[in-house]
């Protein structure tokens, strides 16, 4: 069953045509990685799914609800703010820069939305939050403030905060790009654990080995289009597409 279904999605920034007709489906329990050169539209795609950007054309369907529905001419039509907020609660977003709430403790970061958006009782939300903190290995940090944590710890809290809403779909926007190299591993390990639990995930990443290891499917994007998609072995180890070969060579050269 599809948790995410994107059809003919177009996004412009002024005259810049950033997404040029994206078709993409993600099934329940599937882990899909999006790779590609910077400026290829990967992050914009993710941000459209989470309604941080508004698409001009095409449709986005999340767990059976239309975030954007294409009208007869293909133009994206969005529902009311309240409906969008409702859909947003079924998506968890993990940002490159964590974006934790600095004035709230780790535990408060986790229960904020469950209590005030989902209207869970504080006790119930706290109980779930503590379980999530244990899962990302940060039980001892529940009373710390984000500013007191390392980047890796902050990102693990951010993952737990997104999971606290029990989303149907988790989005990761380059979750390790802002981290010092020695902190990347701990965050990737947490995401790997989620993959084992069959949490549906769409991940934009530059970590090729990581993508190869955890993905059921890899999408290669360039210039606002999906150039290739398939199993990680085919896309990453034996690409027949010259553009993917060039991209992978550049990354290998860098490393």
């Amino acid at each position, binding site marked *: 069953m599809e948790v995410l279904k994107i059809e003919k999605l177009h996004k412009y920034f002024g005259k810049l045509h950033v997404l040029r007709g994206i078709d993409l489906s993600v099934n329940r329990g599937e882990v899909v990685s999006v790779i590609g050169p910077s400026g290829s539209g990967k992050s914009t795609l993710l941000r459209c799914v*989470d*309604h*941080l950007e508004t698409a001009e054309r095409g449709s986005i369907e999340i767990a059976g609800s239309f975030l954007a529905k294409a009208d007869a001419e293909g133009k994206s039509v969005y529902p009311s*703010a*309240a409906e969008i*907020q*409702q859909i*947003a*609660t079924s*998506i*968890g*977003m993990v*940002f490159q*820069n*964590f*974006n*934790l*709430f*600095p*004035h709230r403790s780790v535990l408060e970061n986790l229960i*904020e*939305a469950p209590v*005030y*958006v989902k209207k869970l009782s504080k006790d119930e939300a706290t109980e779930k939050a503590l379980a999530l903190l244990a899962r990302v290995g940060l039980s001892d940090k529940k009373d710390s*403030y*984000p*500013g007191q944590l390392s980047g890796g710890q902050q990102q693990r809290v951010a993952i737990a*905060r*997104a999971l606290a*809403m029990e989303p149907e779909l988790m989005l990761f926007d380059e979750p390790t790009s802002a981290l010092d190299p020695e902190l990347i591993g701990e965050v990737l390990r947490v995401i790997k654990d989620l993959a084992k639990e069959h949490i549906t995930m769409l991940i934009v990443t530059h970590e090729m080995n990581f993508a190869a290891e955890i993905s059921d499917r890899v999408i290669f994007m360039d210039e606002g289009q999906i150039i290739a998609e398939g199993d990680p072995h085919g896309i990453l180890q034996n690409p027949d597409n010259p553009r993917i070969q060039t991209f992978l060579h550049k990354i290998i050269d860098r490393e």
Partner: protein
Amino acid sequence: MGAGVTLQVFAVTLVFSIPIGILCAIGKLSRFRVVRFLISIYTWVFRGTPLLLQLFFTYYGLAILTNGAISLEPLPAALLTFVFNYAAYFTEIFRAGIQSIGRGQYEASKALGMPHWLMMRRIILPQAVKIILPPMGNEAINLIKDTALCSVITITEILRNAQKVMSRDFNITALVIAACIYLALTFIVILLFRRLEKRFAYYSIK
């Protein structure tokens, strides 16, 4: 000594101008162009003319303009003027505070499905408060001193009292005492804000 009136003007001004300032700041950042325009006119007028002139206007001017239909007592006239004058300054301070909160906080709130007002109340404004405390402290000190302007519309506050005593006794003791009262009041305000800033020091915005 008239300190009562001074404190009254001080307290009433803060209590009413802060909420008005918050609302106007949010309005000034809203997507409604008319709202933004009207609030800009308001802050321009009240920040762009002397408070003394505004006091004259509400006390004398309104009465003349309306042929006596609106004729305010000195104290209400002073309170009204001070509230709207200070709210105009607070609007700009709050607006700057709100705008200094990074885009990531808005995006994280939105991603969690928070409605706009919930986000403002729980995420944006509490962080803005920390940023605006130092300029708010400045305004509060200014307010203490500005209350002396009330003397020109016949309100007997600290300064006017001192003036009366001075011309009666023909020495400056009263003036020195008045200065000491102002110093004491501003000192209390400084301490209060220092304490508030400490309370918000438990976290840092990077």
